[in-house]
């Protein structure tokens, strides 16, 4: 196994073309992820035609670059604008955006970038070592297990609702109801369309996400006349310097949280159909519970 890993490592690191393609792919991924509404999957699909002329290793390296870069790009838009660039960065908005607004954008970006880096490294090591066993575990998941996982994820909305269980449950149920609008995937029957053909496709996830986060934030910002006319941050005119050192220290100081979140990500990631959109909320919930 180690010889295979070394061979793969050598074919990437010793090949400047592959490294260059990975660099370009990561850059494109960051740009794609930073645009609210532009998912990582869309970025990878757009990259696919460019890989037709490449070797298998180069093509995979480029698409992985886009994929990984997309996650980092997503955290930038959600921290700086409060709009999650990707569904997997929703939880980053909860604390990242207030931290930016409080005048610490450099630290917020640093925490996001370095958490992504460490989490990525941990998951890479574990996946390389245990991929076959984890894949077996993932494929063992049946319909009831999925149902339980989704119910578990939904119960978390209650714990994120700031102590008011009723309101948390109502918010979760409203979300579930919104997902039922449109054509039923099993029977192909229209539900709650009220005669409008546009409703048949239901509500797309990202526009709802942008509407919920961006528009509500906009209305809060303009609520007060004085606040509406003043800069959103006290140092909005200064150049932001990412606080790498402090961010790394904070993350490593809370290494238990780092490992726990990484394991949650790995476990959710190996399940077919589940992914970043669920794992980020699960990890956030656990982190919040452990620090309160």
């Amino acid at each position, binding site marked *: 196994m180690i010889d295979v890993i070394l061979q793969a490592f050598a074919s990437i690191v010793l090949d400047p073309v592959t490294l260059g393609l990975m660099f370009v792919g990561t850059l494109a991924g960051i740009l794609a992820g930073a645009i609210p509404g532009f998912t990582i999957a869309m970025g990878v699909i757009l990259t696919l035609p460019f890989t037709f002329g490449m070797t298998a290793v180069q093509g995979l390296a480029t698409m992985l670059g886009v994929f990984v870069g997309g996650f980092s790009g997503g955290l930038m838009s959600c921290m700086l604008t409060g709009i999650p660039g990707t569904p997997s960065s929703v939880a980053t908005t909860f604390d990242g955006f207030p931290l930016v607004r409080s005048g610490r954008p450099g630290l917020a970006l640093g925490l996001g970038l370095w958490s992504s880096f460490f989490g990525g490294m941990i998951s890479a090591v574990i996946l390389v070592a245990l991929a076959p066993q984890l894949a077996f575990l993932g494929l063992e998941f049946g319909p009831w297990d999925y149902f339980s996982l989704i119910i578990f994820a939904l119960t978390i909305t209650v714990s994120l609702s700031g102590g008011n269980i009723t309101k948390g*449950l109502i918010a979760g149920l409203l979300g579930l109801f919104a997902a039922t609008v449109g054509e039923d995937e099993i029977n192909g029957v229209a539900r709650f369309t009220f005669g409008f053909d546009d409703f048949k496709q239901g509500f797309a996830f990202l526009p709802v996400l942008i509407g919920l986060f961006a528009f509500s934030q906009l209305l809060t910002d303009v609520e007060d006349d004085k606040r509406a006319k003043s800069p959103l941050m006290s140092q909005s005119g200064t150049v932001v310097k990412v606080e790498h050192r402090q961010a790394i220290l904070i993350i490593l100081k809370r290494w238990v949280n780092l490992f726990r979140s990484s394991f949650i990500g790995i476990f959710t990631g190996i399940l077919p159909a589940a992914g970043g959109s669920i794992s980020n909320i699960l990890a956030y919930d656990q982190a919040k519970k452990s620090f309160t």
Partner: protein
Amino acid sequence: MSINKDTIVAIFLLLFCGIMINSSFDIEDPGYQGMKASFWPTIVLCLLSVMSLVMLIKSMVSPTDNNLNSENTNSQNIFLKYKNASICFLMFILFLAFLDYLGMLIGGVLFVFGLLTLLGGFDIKKIINHSIISIVTIGIMWSIFTFGLKVILPEGEILRIW
């Protein structure tokens, strides 16, 4: 017993659930084996109704500080609190209503300029700033979509005739 924000929201939710449960009876049943298409939405709506009822009772029994009868929330203050949000909504509705005639370019510039001016103030310096911001930002956005991404944005009757 006093009326607060939670009471109003709970009543609104109960009305909403009532309308939606009524609409769920109109969901077609193709007669396939298994669960009907209306099964899960009805369950969700029933649970939502129960939770809304709980919220209504809780808001009446133990009112929070969202009391609408307090001094700080008289009708004038409520209007002032939601004035800017109402302006945003009104401007956006106007933008959508005139989109077919003005198009994305002219409509967008007018929308951004109008919103900035109504929220930001009216003096000459600000109006010049708002004009520049609206023309430049919408112009760049329109150019990127039209020439860069080749996405056809609503042209509008005015530009079409011109």
